[in-house]
C-alpha cells in the first residue's frame, strides 16, 4: 500500500486522522505509532521487527551517550579522556549494528556474487549462492535517520531522547517511512511529539498538496512510465534519438514521480500539523551538477554532507594534508585533493545507497567525476567570464547552462534506469548509431505505447508544473497567493486540479498501477 493508492487515500489516511482527532491528547502519539506500525505491517508483515529493533537500539544508544556526557562533565581531566573514548565506542557500536543489518540485507548478494567472481579470477575455490531477501519497508531511509540521531547526540548537537514514544514516532511516522524525506531529529521529533490537534486549515493545505502530488504522479509520470518501459525493456530494438527520448522521458518521470510522492508525503504531514523537510527545490533550474544535487533529493544530500563530507574534510588526516599542501603545492591543488578525498565517499555512498548494482555505483562515480571536473575548471571558467565580460546571469548563458545540465542529468538517468551497467553502456553507444532527429516527427513516437493525446497531456502537464516551479523559484508564495484570490477563482483552480487528476489520470483500463520508484531503494 503506497501513498497514491485508493486504499491509503480513502481508507487508511482518513481512519488515521479520525482516530488521531478523537484520541485524548496524551494518546495521540500512540495512535500515530499504531497506524505507522500498521502501515509497515501491511507492506512488510513481520519484518516490522527490524524497525522496532532499530528503534530500541537507537533509543538506548542515545541514553547511553547522554549518560556518558554527564559523567564526562563532572570528571577529572584524566578520566575525561577515557570517557571520550568510551563515547566513541558506544557510537561506533550503534552505527556498526545498524549498518551491519542494512548491508547484510541489502548488499549481501551483491558482495557475495562479486567476491565469488574475484575468487574465480584467482582460481580460489569459493562459490556463493544468492539468498532471496525481502527488505523491510524503508530500511534505507529509517537507518539513515537513526544513525543521524545517534551522531547528533554524540556531537551534542541535540540532547538524547528519554521518551521511547518520541523515538518510535520519529523513526516510524508513516507518511515518510516509505521514501523519505530523511528527517533530522531536530526537524520533526518535537512537532510530532507535540500531538497538536487537527486544524481545518492544515487539512485543507495538506489535501491540496496531496492532489498536486497525485497530478504529477498519475497524470504525467504514470503516462511516461509506458514509454520508458517500452524502450528500456526491449532496449536492443531501439537506437539513436529514441534512446534520448526514453532517457528524457525517464528523467521527467522520475522527477514527477519522486517529487509528486514527496508532495503527498509532506501534504500528509501537514494534515497532522507536522512540517517535514522539503526534498526538492526546482532541480532543473540549477547552474551545474553539484547545484542540481543541492536541489534534488535534498535530504539525502544533506545527510551525506553532514555525516560524511564534513567529518571527512575535518578529519585529522585531511587537516594534516591541508597544512602540508598549502605550504608545498599551493591552495588550488590543496583544495582539489581535499575535495576529492571528501567527495569520493559521498558519491560512492550515494550510488550504493540506491541499491546493490554496479550501474548505481557508476551513477555515483559519474557525478563525482563531473563535480571534480567542475572544481578543477572553476578558476579557468572565472577567468574566461572575466576577460570576455560575460555576466553569468545573462539569459543566453543560463540557457547554455540549462542545456548542459540536461545533457548531464539525462545521461546519468539513462545509466541509472538501465537494467545493468553493460546494458546502460550499450544503450548509450547506440544513441550515436543512425541518429536521425527526423524520427521525432514521422509518427515513430506513437509506437512507444501511448498515443498523441497522451503526449499532449504530458506536454500540458509538464508546462503546468514548469509554471509552478518557475514561480517557486521566483519565491512567489503560491498557496498563500491562491488564498487571497476571490473564492470562485480559487475554487475553480481546486476543482480544475482535482478533475484533471480524475479525468486525465493514467489509471483504470489500459494503464497499470505503477509502484513508487523510490520505495524500491
Amino acid at each position: 500500500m503506497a501513498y497514491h493508492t485508493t486504499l491509503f487515500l480513502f481508507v487508511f489516511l482518513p481512519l488515521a486522522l479520525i482516530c488521531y482527532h478523537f484520541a485524548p491528547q496524551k494518546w495521540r502519539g500512540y495512535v500515530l505509532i499504531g497506524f505507522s506500525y500498521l502501515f509497515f505491517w501491511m507492506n512488510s508483515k513481520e519484518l516490522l521487527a527490524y524497525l522496532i529493533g532499530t528503534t530500541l537500539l537507537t533509543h538506548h544508544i542515545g541514553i547511553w551517550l547522554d549518560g556518558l556526557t554527564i559523567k564526562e562533565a563532572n570528571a577529572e581531566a584524566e578520566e575525561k579522556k577515557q570517557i571520550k573514548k568510551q563515547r566513541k565506542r558506544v557510537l561506533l557500536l550503534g552505527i556498526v549494528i545498524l549498518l551491519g543489518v542494512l548491508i547484510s540485507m541489502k548488499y549481501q548478494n551483491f558482495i557475495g556474487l562479486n567476491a565469488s567472481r574475484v575468487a574465480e579470477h584467482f582460481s580460489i575455490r569459493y562459490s556463493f549462492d544468492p539468498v532471496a531477501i525481502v527488505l523491510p519497508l524503508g530500511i534505507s531511509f529509517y537507518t539513515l535517520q537513526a544513525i543521524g540521531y545517534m551522531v547528533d547526540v554524540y556531537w551534542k548537537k541535540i540532547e538524547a531522547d528519554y521518551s521511547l514514544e518520541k523515538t518510535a514516532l520519529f523513526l516510524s511516522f508513516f507518511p515518510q517511512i516509505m521514501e523519505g524525506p530523511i528527517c533530522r531529529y531536530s526537524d520533526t521529533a518535537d512537532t510530532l511529539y507535540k500531538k497538536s490537534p487537527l486544524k481545518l486549515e492544515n487539512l485543507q493545505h495538506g489535501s491540496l498538496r496531496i492532489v498536486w502530488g497525485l497530478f504529477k504522479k498519475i497524470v504525467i509520470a504514470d503516462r511516461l512510465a509506458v514509454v520508458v518501459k517500452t524502450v528500456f525493456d526491449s532496449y536492443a530494438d531501439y537506437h539513436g534519438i529514441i534512446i534520448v527520448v526514453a532517457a528524457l522521458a525517464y528523467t521527467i518521470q522520475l522527477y514527477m514521480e519522486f517529487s509528486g510522492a514527496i508532495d503527498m508525503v509532506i501534504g500528509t504531514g501537514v494534515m497532522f500539523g507536522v512540517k517535514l523537510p522539503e526534498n526538492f527545490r526546482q532541480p532543473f533550474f540549477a547552474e551545474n551538477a553539484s547545484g542540481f544535487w543541492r536541489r534534488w533529493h535534498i535530504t539525502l544530500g544533506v545527510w551525506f554532507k553532514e555525516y560524511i563530507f564534513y567529518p571527512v574534510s575535518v578529519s585529522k588526516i585531511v587537516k594534516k594534508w591541508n597544512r602540508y599542501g598549502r605550504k608545498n603545492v599551493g591552495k588550488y591543488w590543496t583544495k582539489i585533493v581535499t575535495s576529492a578525498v571528501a567527495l569520493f565517499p559521498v558519491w560512492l555512498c550515494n550510488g550504493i545507497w540506491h541499491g546493490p548494482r554496479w550501474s548505481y555505483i557508476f551513477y555515483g562515480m559519474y557525478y563525482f567525476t563531473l563535480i571534480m571536473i567542475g572544481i578543477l575548471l572553476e578558476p579557468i571558467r572565472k577567468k574566461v567570464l572575466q576577460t570576455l565580460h560575460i555576466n553569468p546571469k545573462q539569459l543566453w548563458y543560463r540557457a547554455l547552462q540549462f542545456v548542459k545540465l540536461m545533457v548531464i542529468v539525462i545521461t546519468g538517468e539513462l545509466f541509472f534506469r538501465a537494467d545493468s551497467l553493460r546494458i546502460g553502456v550499450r544503450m548509450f553507444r547506440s544513441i550515436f548509431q543512425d541518429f536521425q532527429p527526423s524520427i521525432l516527427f514521422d509518427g515513430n513516437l506513437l509506437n512507444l505505447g501511448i498515443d498523441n493525446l497522451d503526449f499532449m497531456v504530458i506536454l500540458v502537464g509538464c508546462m503546468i508544473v514548469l509554471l509552478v516551479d518557475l514561480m517557486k523559484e521566483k519565491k512567489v508564495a503560491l498557496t498563500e497567493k491562491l488564498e487571497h484570490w476571490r473564492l470562485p477563482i480559487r475554487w475553480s483552480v481546486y476543482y480544475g486540479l482535482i478533475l484533471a487528476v480524475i479525468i486525465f489520470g493514467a489509471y483504470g483500463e489500459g494503464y497499470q498501477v505503477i509502484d513508487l520508484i523510490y520505495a524500491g531503494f
Partner: protein
Amino acid sequence: MKKIRTIIFVALLIGILFGISGVINHVYLKKSNMVTGREENLAGLQKEEDNTIDLLVLGDSESYTSISTMMLWKEDGISSYIGAQSGQQIQETYYMLKQALQTQKPKLVMLETHVLFRDNAGMDAYRSVMEENAMYHFSVFRYHNIWKRLLSSNIGDDRQFFKGFRVRDSVAPYDGGDYMQETTVKKQMTGFVKNYLQQIIDICKENDIPILFYSAPSPVNYNYQKHNTLIEYTENAGIPYVDLNMMTSELGIDWTKDTLDHGDHLNIYGAQKVTKYMRKYLEENYNLPDHRGQQKYKDWDVLEDQYEKRLLTLKV
C-alpha cells in the same frame, strides 16, 4: 464559517462528479462505441432500450464466448445480453447485475460459474470492492478515458457489437483428453466469493428473477472438483445448474475444432453448439417470450443480419 465553506466545497465537488457521471451515462454511452475493451459490455448496457432484455448472462470471458445472443434471437426471438468482462471478479458480477437492473427487468439471469473460483480474498479484494462501488455510483471514474474518444476522429467505426457476444473464429485445438475425471475432492470457493454470490442471489430473489448457473465447456478452467462444489452449492441453494463440461459429447464439442485457445475458450463453432443446447433447455424450463417482429426490437433484426454476414466470412 470556514467549516461550512469546506462542507459546501466537498458537496459541490460530489455534485460535479455526479453531474459528469450523469452526462457520461446518459449522453455519451448512448452513442456507439464510446467504450471498447474490457468495459465494453458494461458500457453497452446503457445503449439498450429500457426493459427490453429478457435474458441476462453474467460471467467472465467464458460467458461471452459460449452463448450466442444472435442465435437465440434468430431461432427463438429471445432478447439476451451478456454482461461480462474478461476476468470478471465476483464483485464486478454483482455491480454488473445492479447496473443492468437500473434499466432492465430480465426474466432470467444466467451465471457462468467460472467467476466463482477466482481467489478473491484479503485486502486487495476489499480495495476492489471499494473501487467498484465508487465506479458504480460515479461512472466518471470508470470511463474517465472517454475524453480521448471525444477528441479523436475515429468515432463510429463499424465494429459489430452483438449484445455482448464476441464472434471469434480462430482455432487452436485442445488435445488433453478427458478432463472431468470423477473424484470426491472439492475445490473450495473463498468466503468472499460466497458472500457476494449470496448477495447476487438475494437481489434476484427480491426482483423475482430466477437464476440459473451454467458452466461453459472449458478443459482449462473446469474439473470434477469444481463440479462437486457447484453441485453441492446449487442443491443447497435450490438453484438449477447445468454443467456443460459433463456433456461435451452430447453437445458434439470437437476439441480439435471448437476451441479458440487450446481449450480455454470456445470459438464461434463451439458457441453455436452450446447455444443450440441451451435453447432447448431454456425452452423446456423457462417461458421466455418471442419478440420477433415487434416494433421495439427492429434493430435486433438489423444486427442479426450483420451477424449472418459476419458468419459468412468465416473460414469454416
